């Protein structure tokens, strides 16, 4: 059964889109990530124009983050104060990102920057997560885990504007979460992702937040950042396809619920290792796209009029 997407201006199979939403939703529920880094490349792969894929995916992530954050809120896993600081950075970053997006599109280098961003960020994050989680798995098998400090102290703790985040049991400079929020905001606008896969590790490893709190808080701030991206993309380039978003989110919210139920049965480090492999998989695919000689060296961009 086909449906014509009014903004993407193409017809797609409803069940293909629902299925993609469901599959990515399941993984996002399982790993506690938005799944944008999987969905946006998938949408582009089935022929949705990249700008529409990015704008629409941002809209869909709003929905999955709302549904996710409510579950975490009930378990008191959201540090609103931290979320607010991240959010301030996120607004600045995503607004800059939307401007950058349009600029790159005019230059004809948008695809390249999207793919390079995927390679760089997925590569770094995937590698770090795999390294950390496999170390944890090995250590937990060899001996009883050593109990260390809550987190390591380093030069980052010497920065000014220190704020006490009671919920996260942290006393750190507000500059750090603001910067993390801003960087992820830029990526959110360019890559069509929520940025959870960068935000959560950054919060755990750079800020020293507990994992469960990091996931809940990142979901909270992703809602607002992706809502900002949705609004700005709709306003400036009109690339948000509501119909496509609704189809995707229907599949995704259902998939996510099953995913999160399933995730309870698995250990944190195992989940992180699996997610790391998934992230590295997408990264390798992008490296392949960039370095293998394309079937057609020419690409065409059509503008009306």
């Amino acid at each position, binding site marked *: 059964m086909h449906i014509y997407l009014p903004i993407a201006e193409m017809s797609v199979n409803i069940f293909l889109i629902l299925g993609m939403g469901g599959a990515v939703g399941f993984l996002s529920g399982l790993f506690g990530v938005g799944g944008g880094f999987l969905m946006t490349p998938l949408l582009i792969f089935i022929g949705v124009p990249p700008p529409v894929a990015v704008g629409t995916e941002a809209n869909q992530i709003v929905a999955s983050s709302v549904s996710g954050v409510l579950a975490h809120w009930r378990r008191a896993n959201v540090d609103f104060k931290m979320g607010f600081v991240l959010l301030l950075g996120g607004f600045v970053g995503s607004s800059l990102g939307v401007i950058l997006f349009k600029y790159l599109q005019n230059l004809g280098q948008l695809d390249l920057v999207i793919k*390079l961003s995927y390679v760089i960020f997925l590569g770094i994050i995937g590698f770090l997560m795999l390294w950390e989680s496999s170390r944890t798995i090995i250590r937990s098998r060899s001996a009883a885990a050593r109990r260390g400090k809550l987190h390591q102290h380093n030069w980052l703790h010497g920065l000014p504007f220190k704020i006490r985040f009671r919920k996260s049991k942290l006393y750190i400079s507000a500059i750090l979460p603001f910067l993390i929020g801003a960087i992820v905001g830029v990526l959110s606008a360019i890559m069509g992702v929520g940025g959870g896969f960068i935000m959560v590790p950054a919060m755990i490893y750079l800020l020293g937040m507990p994992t469960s709190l990091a996931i809940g808080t990142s979901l909270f701030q992703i809602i607002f950042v992706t809502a900002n991206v949705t609004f700005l993309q709709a306003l400036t380039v009109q690339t948000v396809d*509501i119909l496509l978003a609704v189809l995707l*989110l229907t599949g995704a*919210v259902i998939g996510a619920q099953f995913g999160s139920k399933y995730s309870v049965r698995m250990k944190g480090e195992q989940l992180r290792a699996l997610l790391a492999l998934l992230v590295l998989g997408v990264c390798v695919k992008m490296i392949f796209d960039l370095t293998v000689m394309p079937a057609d060296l020419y690409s065409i961009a059509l503008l009306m*009029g």
Partner: protein
Amino acid sequence: MNRSIFTKFSIALIILFLLGPHAYGTALIIDSSTSEVKVSSSFIGTDVMVFGTANDKDDIIVVITGPTETAIVRKKRRVSGIWINKEKLEFRGIPGFYAIASTRPLNEITETNELKKQKIGIQNVITTASLSSEDENIKTFKSFKDALVRGQKTKGLYLDTPLEIDVVSKRLFKTTFHFPNNMATGIYTVKVFAFQKKRLVSMVSKNISVEKIGIGADVFKFAKEQSALYGLLAILIAVVSGWIASVIFRKI
């Protein structure tokens, strides 16, 4: 749909017979199975039949041209192991859709110059005149133009080799074009040329409008005309759906 094609086809037959032998050597009459293609939310593309009557010995060429667009064609080059868009060429005023059908190969119907003059065949539509700036790009024009035609062809938007025209009886002809689901909306022009002994004897044209209808059309209009409100609505829908999903699944 089929019924309306049939009706129109029958009308054309009746006209043919009414004109009778007296009409020999006169008019080229054409029509199409539809004058309005409606792109609804279930649109998956459609076939449009163009038919008409001509003189006995006429050679017929049918051309359908879509609304004009600007195409930017970019060529990738390898820079330190990565394929990057480098050179570009901008084509202005080119058709977003181009389809052609003929009774015989074009070069048998008429001279190259005449094809050029009448802009028949995609190579006579996209010329160096379509370039936005006339500079050293002329050298690379052919490879970029070929890439453009190739790209549009794979999307089903261009035809470079003419389709066949069915000559039903001596004077009645018909041919069917496919309008794919990714076609742009706007006015499409059907031009039918009749040639005799390599000379153009007659040309008739008609328009076919392709427009979005139903919810899809409303959504498109809303997104373009009230972008801010559209953006807010998109967010609202997402928030409400997320919330509903969370409530439903908590109960289960």
